[in-house]
């Protein structure tokens, strides 16, 4: 069996969706094979990271909340995953510039004494001048094009949840400093612009305008970002309307979700 298959199987096991026969076999492996036990630990953390990043499918998310997250230990691990993500989001730029040091011996650095002209005054100043000019040029290029130094993709502090009109999923209160990005699935993508209004128990909480639909897989979605601070445990309803050519609002769909602690 390949490593990838193992990983997928362990993932299904952790989410409680592995078939009974295979589950028994895997449990025996957990007891008898150190590699399987280790894989279980790794996939546990990866599932937590994917949940925190909003990267699980709707079904996986439900299984994660109802099956995976049952013990106090795993709830603690989830808390840690949320903290770590917050830290990574705040510090990603700082890690993007330097490379990870490997165990390979470091390259000998170019010092003044190693320059070929060391010991010959005229040539020394000439070479030193070239080095200084090169450093200045590199600094200038770095200043002119700061984006090119950032090899890492930036991760926004948002929790992403996909919402279908008929579903009413549960959503955790986003960690402090995070927003909630709702991806509203569209049955009929017929408008260019969209507006949304979020209600908490029939009271308007936040409105968003000038929203654009985007393709996602084989369907279209309208992304709406809700400020994390406005969300507290309770039932929410989001009304989506399309803006017609004349500028009038036409109600399209209602999306529901419940925010839980």
């Amino acid at each position, binding site marked *: 069996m390949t490593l990838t298959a193992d990983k997928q199987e362990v993932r299904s096991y952790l989410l409680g969706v592995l078939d009974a026969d295979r589950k028994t076999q895997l449990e025996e492996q957990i007891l*008898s094979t150190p590699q399987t036990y280790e894989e279980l630990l790794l996939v546990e953390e990866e599932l937590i990271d994917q949940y925190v990043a909003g990267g699980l499918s709707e079904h996986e998310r439900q299984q994660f909340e109802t099956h995976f997250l049952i013990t106090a230990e795993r709830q603690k691990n989830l808390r840690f995953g949320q903290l770590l993500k917050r830290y990574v989001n705040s510090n990603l730029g700082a*890690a*993007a510039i330097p490379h990870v040091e490997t165990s390979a011996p470091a390259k000998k650095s170019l010092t003044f004494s190693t320059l070929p002209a060391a010991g010959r005054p005229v040539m020394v100043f000439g070479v030193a001048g070239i080095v200084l000019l090169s450093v200045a040029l590199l600094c200038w290029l770095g200043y002119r094009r700061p984006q090119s130094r950032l090899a890492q993709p930036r991760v926004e502090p948002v929790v992403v949840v996909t919402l279908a009109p008929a579903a009413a999923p549960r959503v955790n209160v986003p960690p402090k400093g995070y927003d909630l990005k709702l991806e509203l699935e569209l049955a009929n993508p017929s408008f260019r612009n969209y507006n949304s209004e979020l209600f908490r128990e029939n009271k308007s909480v936040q409105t968003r305008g000038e929203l654009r639909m985007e393709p996602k897989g084989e369907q279209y979605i309208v992304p709406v970002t809700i400020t994390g601070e406005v969300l507290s445990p309770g039932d929410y309803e989001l009304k989506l309307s399309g803006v017609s050519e004349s500028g009038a609002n036409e109600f399209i769909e209602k999306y529901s979700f419940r925010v839980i602690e």
Partner: protein
Amino acid sequence: MNKDWELSQEAFDALLDWLDSDREQAALKYEKIRRSLIKIFTGRGCVEPEDLADETINRVTSKLKEIGKEFSGDRTRYFFGVANKVHLEHLRRKLPQPTPPPTNDPDWIELEYSCLERCIERLSKEHRELLLRYHGAEGPAETEHRRALAAELGIAPNALRIRVYRIRMGLKECVEKCIERSLG
């Protein structure tokens, strides 16, 4: 099994002898079996997996006089069989589900975060950068990003997963200790 039966030092020693004649190896095997049983009971949806793992071990230990010398075969499998029985009994008992601990106290969250920052500062430069870079991409780009990082380090992607996991576990332990110290 008598539910009042408790694991005495003598019984525990007998269990270790049964697991391995080398005491250090036996202790390692015991720890591994207990940790694995906890994961198995958790996977079966039990909210107090540690109690069930201990009950399984106690039950195996209490039967050692009957099975001890004649037993041949994989001893970890014997634990698995007993764990299945313990689980069935647990399902019949239908214990109430404990409520999850409170998690949204802003002061608590800030305490946790400041501890995390302190612990990350204590990591070596290489570990700190590795942790940040490993978690620096998510979604479809994640796999390729981590593969490239592993190649840069000259290790296999799975070795990278394990390396980051160990850094992360050390960090988690540091945060837990920091919180304990902060609470006095």
